[in-house]
């Protein structure tokens, strides 16, 4: 186990170094942030002062080395735009994104698992077919499209057509409450209202995936001997499905849910842009459009770190949940 974790951590470091170099090199070749930051009226002296302040007058390799040296201690320079340290900016925006992603994933699991189990238990019923057809819609429609339609329906059309229909907020986060220094919106009613549409948008695609996965897993587990044995013992259908089946399909579902959390956080980039959700995804898009290099690079390093850690944690959890899997054997 220890060897496995160390090996994976080393791999993570290599991936992060390669990524940071690629991104830094790539972003260096694109555009000159100075033109975006300084007004046309600025004098030549002012221009040079800004360039020197940002360290843009040095050669690329030196800028990269400075960057790496500072990155190791978690410093990615100041945002060209906000003037604040990039890392601090990312951390400020992180709670909003994590909150959105977790609520969306919870929604997807709570809706997806029961529907998927139903479709798996009665695969030929009309309702099961309906569920599966809707799930095709769920993952063939892009996130931004779903978000757009939800806004059209719940924030524009329905309140207009039906008097008294509540207009769901379609932008921003609503009031937040400070919990342990984190600003969270899940503790206010307004916050939940704001969370509803973006979380539903993100949850739809993942819910569709979980439905399909749960259905497949249920169908795989049903003909197993232990289910037959439970039936032979005369256990109630509820206990068979709720304990024997659910326990065994929980393993693949937990694994995929964990891995998909990374995807959800990545796709939050789109959802946050549509709903003006002030998370790090929106921060990334704004920074890319304005060539705010330090923030883009800091975001990438954070997200790569997060994804690698997520994979590692999921692998470890997998072996905890399923005692048949031993990591040492795979550790090579």
């Amino acid at each position: 186990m220890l060897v496995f974790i160390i090996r994976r951590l080393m791999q993570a470091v290599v991936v992060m170094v390669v990524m940071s170099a690629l991104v830094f090199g790539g972003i260096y070749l694109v555009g000159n942030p100075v033109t975006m930051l300084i007004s046309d009226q600025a004098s030549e002296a002012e221009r040079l002062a800004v360039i020197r302040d940002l360290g843009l007058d040095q050669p690329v390799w030196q800028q990269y080395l400075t960057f790496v040296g500072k990155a190791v201690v978690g410093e990615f320079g100041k945002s060209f735009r906000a003037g604040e340290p990039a890392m601090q900016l990312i951390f400020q925006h992180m709670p909003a994104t994590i909150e959105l992603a977790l609520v969306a994933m919870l929604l997807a699991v709570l809706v997806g698992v029961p529907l998927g189990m139903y479709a798996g238990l009665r695969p030929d019923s009309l309702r099961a077919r309906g569920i599966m057809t809707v799930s095709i819609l769920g993952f063939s429609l892009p996130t931004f499209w779903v978000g757009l339609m939800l806004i059209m329906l719940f924030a524009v059309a329905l309140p207009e057509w039906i008097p008294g229909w509540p207009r769901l907020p379609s932008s921003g986060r609503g009031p937040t409450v400070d919990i342990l220094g984190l600003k969270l919106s899940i503790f206010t009613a307004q916050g939940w209202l704001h969370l509803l549409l973006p979380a539903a948008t993100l949850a739809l695609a993942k819910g569709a995936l979980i439905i399909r996965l749960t259905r497949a897993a249920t169908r795989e587990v049903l003909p197993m001997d232990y289910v037959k044995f439970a039936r032979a013992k005369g256990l109630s259908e509820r206990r068979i499905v709720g304990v024997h089946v659910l326990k065994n399909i929980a393993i693949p579902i937990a694994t995929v849910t964990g891995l998909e959390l990374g995807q959800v956080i990545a796709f939050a980039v789109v959802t946050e842009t549509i709903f003006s959700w002030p998370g790090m995804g929106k921060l990334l898009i704004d920074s890319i459009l304005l060539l705010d290099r330090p923030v883009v690079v800091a975001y990438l390093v954070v997200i790569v770190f997060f994804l690698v850690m997520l994979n590692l944690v999921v692998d470890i959890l997998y072996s905890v949940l399923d005692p048949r899997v031993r990591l040492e054997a795979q550790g090579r």
Partner: protein
Amino acid sequence: MTDAAADNMPPGAGRAAPAVETPWRRFMADFCANRLALFGLVLVIVVAAAALLAPWLAPQNPYDIAKLDIFDSKMPPGSASSDGTLTYWLGTDGQARDMLSAMMYGMRVSLLVGAVSVVVALAIGTVVGLTAAFFGGRVDAFLMRCVDIQLSFPAILVALILLAVLGQGVDKVLYALIAVQWAYFARAARAAALVEREKEYVEAARCLALPRRRILWRHLLPNCLPPLIVIATVEVAHAIALEATLSFLGLGVPVTEPSLGKLIANGFEFLMAGKYWIALFPGLALAMALIGINLVGDHLRDILNPRNAR
């Protein structure tokens, strides 16, 4: 859902057949057995025809700025143009383009980007996958490690970063989509080739002392293609969706040649003002294309899956 259709088939329907039943006919019969998939195929044909024939069918050329009348901008569906020659059945957008025409031309860009990126990614992925499977050892380990690492990143992030680096333009979007997709094909091609490699015909070819290159491209490749083509169908939908997303975020195709995603993005700003048609109609067209392709692809996968009834 669809495997029920496969289960209902008479036993032996999948076997190689008496003279009349060619594999192609059998395939068509299997395909038509599912009404949902047929519906998907109809959607795809309608959408593709509208896109391909846009220069002849569209009421207006949306790229011809001289033809646009700025007073006609943001008109609701069904209104007549100010010079009275045209009815805007689906309304006009912020630049006074007829929505229907803009959508047909936008679909051209979307389909083109989707199809071209998938074909190139399929080619690259197949070469990498077959090479890895055929040579094995270090080559295999290295190539597949690259694939694993790439696949551990969400596609949207890879594409976003590439576009941030490369800049805007249809060609840049193509590069980004190819870079995102090749790894899927590489992995699938390798898996297919690992199975095929052990079969008798490959052994026979080896016994004949055919050159490696010939075995690889003339014997292994054609037999690995069917599963790859199924993946490719669904990937076209992915590519179109991803392109639309990138364009929506402002990092995809330029404003001058709007794809469906760009049209939707343009309409988004008017949404809150109640001018729903600018975003809604291209959105519906995009959904039609994606749902159609996915229904067809989903069913193709069921038919061609050797585990089902074959």
